[in-house]
């Protein structure tokens, strides 16, 4: 990741979102900052209910009706066809403008379940060209040939024949490829992948991720992954944001998060996942379950589940402490006055193992 003046694609500042529910207002997002630069890949990681999908839905302007944005800005920079850049605040745009200029055209989204994100009554060819006809004012013939090329690009054999197929005639992996083709049809500058492989098998999962990576390299687009799978994160991400209870608790480059995690929640998430070298010991678990955001959480929301919680965690929410230029974590453990707490021994052993595995890997490649 070379340091040059790079262009910001997405800049979210102080985003807060409340959902009106029958039980009362739920503060799903409580002040989120996210930065994404052109060509980079960001992974947003967290348990279900941590607000990772809601944040990205807000960036796309497709929040549910009962959601209310309390504060914040989402600045998105895109290029007109002639190359002049323009920056807009997604939250201030009217729905009509969003649908015409942003959704599908400049920000595209890949959803978790390929079974439900395709229209069963339309042939896949029609579904791919639909966006091009609407956004790019392409003629039908042009759009059709582009669609065939796209299907070929995402690795579907005999694309001309497949254009006339309906979703039910394709397997899960093939359907997800079609969804990716649809997302790419209008040449978006930002691709949001919401758990793109959770519904798929491991073998197909790897292929889909490699496909997205390849396309990203070729087209130079920025990608946001929403996931809870650290295997996926390790494979694709440049930067990682760890979310918990509607806040980002740790952010950094992928190496910083995996080899030098600082927040106890990140420790927990990393330890809970068995890697293939885990011996016959017990898996580490994060005790308890995420807080109910219906009630205001005093202090640090993670404190009740945190074995390393300090007294101050119950009273005051920790700010983002800086670890390095790119690495920040919101935990009082990083305060100067805090006692020195090291990461769990098992995790440290695993990180050492990972570094060793890397050497082995490097020697194998050479």
């Amino acid at each position, binding site marked *: 990741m070379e340091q040059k003046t790079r262009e910001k694609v997405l800049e979210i500042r102080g985003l807060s979102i409340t959902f009106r529910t029958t039980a009362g207002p739920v503060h799903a997002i409580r002040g989120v900052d996210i930065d994404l630069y052109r060509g980079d890949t960001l992974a947003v990681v967290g*348990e*279900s209910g941590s607000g990772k999908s809601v944040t990205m839905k807000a960036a796309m302007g497709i929040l549910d009706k009962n959601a209310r944005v309390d504060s914040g800005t989402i600045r998105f920079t895109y290029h007109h066809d002639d190359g002049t850049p323009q920056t807009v605040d997604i939250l201030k745009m009217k729905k009509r403008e969003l649908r015409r200029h942003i959704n599908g055209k400049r920000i595209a989204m890949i959803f978790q379940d390929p079974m439900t994100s395709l229209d069963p009554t339309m042939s896949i060819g029609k579904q791919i060209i639909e966006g091009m006809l609407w956004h790019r004012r392409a003629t039908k013939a042009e759009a059709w040939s582009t669609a065939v090329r796209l299907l070929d690009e995402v690795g579907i054999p005999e694309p001309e024949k497949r254009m006339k197929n309906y979703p039910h005639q394709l397997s899960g992996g093939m359907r997800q490829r079609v969804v990716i083709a649809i997302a790419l049809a209008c040449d978006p500058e930002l691709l949001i992948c919401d758990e793109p492989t959770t519904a798929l098998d491991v*073998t197909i999962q790897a292929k889909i991720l*490699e496909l997205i990576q390849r396309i990203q390299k070729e087209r130079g687009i920025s990608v946001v992954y929403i996931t809870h799978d650290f295997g996926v994160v390790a494979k694709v991400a440049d930067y990682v944001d760890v979310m918990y209870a509607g806040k980002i608790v740790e952010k950094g480059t*992928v190496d910083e998060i995996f080899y030098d995690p600082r927040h106890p929640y990140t420790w927990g998430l990393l330890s809970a996942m*068995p890697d293939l070298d885990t011996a016959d010991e017990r*898996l*580490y678990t994060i005790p308890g379950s995420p807080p109910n955001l219906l009630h205001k959480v005093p202090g640090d929301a993670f404190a009740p589940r945190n074995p390393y919680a300090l007294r101050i965690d119950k009273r005051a929410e920790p700010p983002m402490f800086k670890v390095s230029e790119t690495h920040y974590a919101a935990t009082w453990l990083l305060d100067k006055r805090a006692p020195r707490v090291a990461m769990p021994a098992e995790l440290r052993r695993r990180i050492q193992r990972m570094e060793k595995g890397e050497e082995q890997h490097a020697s194998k490649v050479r």
Partner: protein
Amino acid sequence: MHPKSGEPILKVCGLKQYFQVSGRFTVRAVDGVDFVIYPGETYGLVGESGSGKSTIGRSLIRLYDPTAGRIEFDGMDISGRMSRGDTERLRTEMQMIFQDPMACLNPRKKVGEIIAQGLDIHHLYRNRTERTDKVAAMLEKVGLAPEHADRYPHQFSGGQRQRVGIARALIMNPKLVIADECISALDVSIQAQVVNLMKDLQTQTGTTYLFIAHDLSMVKYISDRIGVLHLGHLLETGSTEEIFNHPVHPYTRSLLSAIPRPNPRVEKDRVAQSYDYKAEGVDYRKGTRHHLGGQHYVLATPEELARWTNGE
């Protein structure tokens, strides 16, 4: 991993499960599968979706009538027509934990009722107090509080519901528990909780697990032995070590190479091996079981076996 000795608790021999879709078309979901499970061990079944792993679980517990083959459970034949007594024994001694904790609990019953339902049906208590005590003890075993018996499933989180599912299965003191993708629907941190719980309960009660999953890293963690399924055929089976360290079948290898590893520097430039059933020119129906030593078996024709073992 110590080799399990003694008589197997479950013997599956040539199990076939076909589903007739229409007059001319039959789906061969499971097409001749042999494996054994020993008491007290965990046998992991892995494969991609459509490989027939869930079907095997459902055939074993007789949710389906097997088309052909022989299933022997604890010395009793459970593949053909079963006498009333045998059915009753099967229904108590073999239990199942289902995939989706949101869907597998009756939303109109309290958790205590759900857990005690098996006891009720088989009259396994003498009076109400014994029933309440049994439910309370079971709830505590799976990490819930006895007060939870009076709540409804919707009042619990996903991980807690899966604990209720486990409690419901284990209260019958089963000899074999079939866990069908029982952690796939849960979050990573909750998965670890449930897997730890299952392991703890196994050491306490000595139950046998058939663990069906597609997440290989979890399967490796929990299983003593593993079977790899593809298109209804058991391609390779062996101890966890044999499968993970010396995979022979190309499908097993591609499956192992596809596991994402939480290690960015290794993961970044790793490319998964692909496996194409047709391109490999492998016909599973022609293959026979070859013993490779230990508990390691692979399905192959002699030529294929020679190619796979030497073609390193």
